[in-house]
């Protein structure tokens, strides 16, 4: 029976207006709505789909998160979506390395067969936790995974490669770094899911001491988008003129 671990990150809602404090060195969290990182949410959706499709083959879907107690609503949403249980490592997610180290302890103390990580978090976009986690654990990692399927005892991973896809099988345990295509849409929690999340286990583990390898020196917001110009579909000449002379893209 396969046990799946999905690593989830807690990120600001994608519509949040980003602000910084501490001389532009720290994200200002005031009034921020937090959500499951969209890539991780899709990974979780796929894991739940796999269990539903093959309940005899998949024993459990666990979510793991590194963060403080205020991130628990995000974890409980994952439980409401359909994860069986959750582990929160009580530590601040300082950088990718510290998160990977904390998650590696979770994996060492349990026996997961498939570990799914979203390709990146939508806040810091480092795209490194999955790779680091596999390296620390000394297990394979597979990147650019757009589908995970079970065929008997074998796990098949579909990867995006230059100009197409390849499908590979890999021995357990492994880390799959998942991307576009892994699930169609994130699952919306059902009433029953929300209700059952009340009674599912959310285990809290104390984090271990880790090194902080990253120092944030400065955050800069992208420049504001310029206003949109609408051009009549019949007026192609004007469109070319603007693209050439104003936007200077052709």
């Amino acid at each position, binding site marked *: 029976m396969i046990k799946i671990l999905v690593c989830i990150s807690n990120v600001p809602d994608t519509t949040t207006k980003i602000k910084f404090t501490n001389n532009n060195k720290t994200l200002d969290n005031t009034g921020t709505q937090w959500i499951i990182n969209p890539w991780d949410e899709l990974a979780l959706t796929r894991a739940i789909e796999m269990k539903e499709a093959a309940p005899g083959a998949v024993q459990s879907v666990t979510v793991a998160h590194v963060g403080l107690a205020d991130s628990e609503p995000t974890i409980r949403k994952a439980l409401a979506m359909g994860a069986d249980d959750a582990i929160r490592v009580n530590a601040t997610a300082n950088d990718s390395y510290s998160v990977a180290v904390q998650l590696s302890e979770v994996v060492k103390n349990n026996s997961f067969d498939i570990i799914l990580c979203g390709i990146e978090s939508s806040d810091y976009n480092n795209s490194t936790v999955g790779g680091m986690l596999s390296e620390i654990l000394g297990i394979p990692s597979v990147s650019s995974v757009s589908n995970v399927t079970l065929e008997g005892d074998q796990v098949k991973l579909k990867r995006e490669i230059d100009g197409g896809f390849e499908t590979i099988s890999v021995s357990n345990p492994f880390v799959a770094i998942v991307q576009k295509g892994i699930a169609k849409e994130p699952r919306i929690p059902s*009433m029953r899911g929300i209700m059952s999340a009340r009674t599912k286990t959310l285990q809290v583990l104390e984090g271990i001491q880790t090194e902080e390898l990253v120092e944030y020196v400065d955050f800069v917001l992208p420049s504001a988008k310029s206003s949109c110009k609408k051009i009549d579909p019949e007026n192609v000449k004007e469109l070319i003129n603007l693209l050439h002379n104003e936007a200077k893209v052709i």
Partner: protein
Amino acid sequence: MDFNFTEEQLMIQSAARDFAQRELLEGIIERDDNCIFPAEQIKKLSELGFLGMMVDPKYDGGGMDAVSYVLAMEEISKIDSAAAVVMSVNNSLVCWGLETYGTEAQKEKFLKPLARGEKLGAYLLSEPEAGSDATSQRTTAEDKGDYYLLNGTKNWITNANCASTYLVIAQTNPEKKHKGINVLIVDKNSPGVSLGPHENKMGMRSSDTHSVMFTDVKVPKENRIGEDGFGFTFAMKTLEGGRIGIASQALGIASGAFERAVKYSKERKAFGTEISNHEVIAFKLADMAVKIENARNLCLKAAWLKDQYQPYGTASAMAKKYAADIAMEVTTEAVQIHGGYGYVKEYHVERLMREAKLTQIYEGTSEIQNIIISRAVLKD
């Protein structure tokens, strides 16, 4: 006093918002134009458990509170009121009525499939000549010993075609006036049940509204809810809760229009700046925001009272009247803020304005709400 929502309530609100944005927004204009019932979307909504969300889990419901229901109704109604009214009728009138007053056998047979969303329910009270005056029921349920013989016509019935379980209010003993009224559970597929054409409405055009005719329909005695003559009390009690649903729907229509007006006012430029920078528009938005906040608080107060098992009939009447009236005002202003764009369908606010009007009419007009409220405030 704690104005914070619980984690679960916020999760339900977020689930409803995600569902509305993902499943209901696409195709809404076409469905409204062509009176197409959102069957696929309702199926998905039922799979998520929204159609029986307040029913006790032992009857296969979601077990959520009325506050969660308000939050969900607002989010769904921001996008698609036709879907929201299916949710309102099924939850607050049909499921609540069966759960509160039905026998265990009735709950087992009728409530469970409704709560699971496998079947839809409809509530048949209004008649061609009995709308606000619900005591004047002309539909008759003649007592024939083992069964009732149902004859008559019901009007403006939401879910009439898509529902399979009808709760029908009908007169059994005319001499007893409203105390002779019964409520019967009727299978829509019974011989003698027929439907009029789909009503071509001003708003909520894709909701499934028909008149329903009963000709010598035999209804088993065990399908009567409550004691003989309980029908009018049943109707009044279920409508108390139904008002919370429709008030929340009106709230959602208003806040949906408001959100669109805010967005548009920040994009549309006039006289060299975004129109939100013009005081005339900014103050309109401020007034709209205050009205919406008031309506939301009234809806939540009524729901909270219901959750606390306290009387909520007056509170739900206040919420329904106020939310419906401000929905009309707010949507009208939203159209005004959009100018010419507000008058065309692509910008959605004209549809919301048409939808708002119905909330002042159905499940008790604003005038009927005033009667309920005034009786409460004038009571010695």
